């Protein structure tokens, strides 16, 4: 399945000084994701596999819609307590000179309120940073407060 015809609602791009393979292994490494989410994470290794984050009473119980190492990971981003799900796609492309582009595309399953989209944007920024740090240095970015700037 390709999402070429679908228009994302949100896009974020970061450039990483690492190979696509290194970025792919950071992206699909449950340890990296666990440190980012601050909760146990389960990531499958094939299409149809799980993408689960067990945080509290409202776990993310997602499913991998495409597992195409090292270029594309497409995930059904589902909270069973709060349907309908969104979809998230990670695209990895060489950008030359040993630099690789990591693009995140978010396809909303509903019209989210602006405030929710903006808090999500903050979270994605941290997640991309965690992947970048791990791919470039092999170090885990410590878990930080994901709620973002608080009043």
């Amino acid at each position, binding site marked *: 399945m390709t999402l070429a015809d679908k*228009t*994302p*609602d*949100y*896009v*974020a*791009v*970061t*450039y990483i000084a690492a190979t696509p393979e290194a970025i792919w292994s950071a992206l699909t490494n449950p340890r990296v994701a666990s440190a980012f989410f601050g909760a146990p994470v389960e990531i499958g290794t094939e299409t149809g596999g799980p993408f689960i984050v067990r945080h509290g009473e409202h776990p993310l119980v997602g499913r991998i819609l495409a597992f195409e190492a090292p270029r594309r990971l497409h995930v059904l981003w589902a909270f069973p307590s709060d349907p309908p799900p969104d979809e998230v796609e990670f695209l990895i492309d060489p950008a030359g000179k040993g630099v690789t582009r990591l*693009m995140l*595309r978010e396809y909303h399953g509903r019209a989210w309120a602006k405030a929710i989209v903006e808090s999500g*944007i*903050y979270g994605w*920024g941290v997640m*991309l*940073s965690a992947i970048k740090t791990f791919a470039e240095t092999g170090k885990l970015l410590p878990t*930080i*407060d994901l709620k*973002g*700037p*608080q*009043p």
Partner: protein
Amino acid sequence: MDAVFKALADPTRRELLDRLREENGQKLNELCQRLAMSRQAVTKHLAVLEAASLVTVIWKGREKLHFLNPVPIGDIYDRWIGKYERTRVAALADLKRALEDKDNDP
């Protein structure tokens, strides 16, 4: 980071980013509306924003859709605003917003 600051140092380019924040994924034609300049000039501004990675383009058939990429501005924020300062910065920003809203009330 130089490219980001150069790209941001222009009111038209900031206006383009504001519009994408309002509505992501716009085409060139949509972005040209209500801007008092030629299509070529807007294209040039968008190219500067793209080069700084502030705008990301996705091709839809033969048309380009423009998306605001928040990552470079996030990097600036992370560089100069520490984790523990964020709460205070946000509190001041909220206070400012609340006071200004009050002034604007009829």
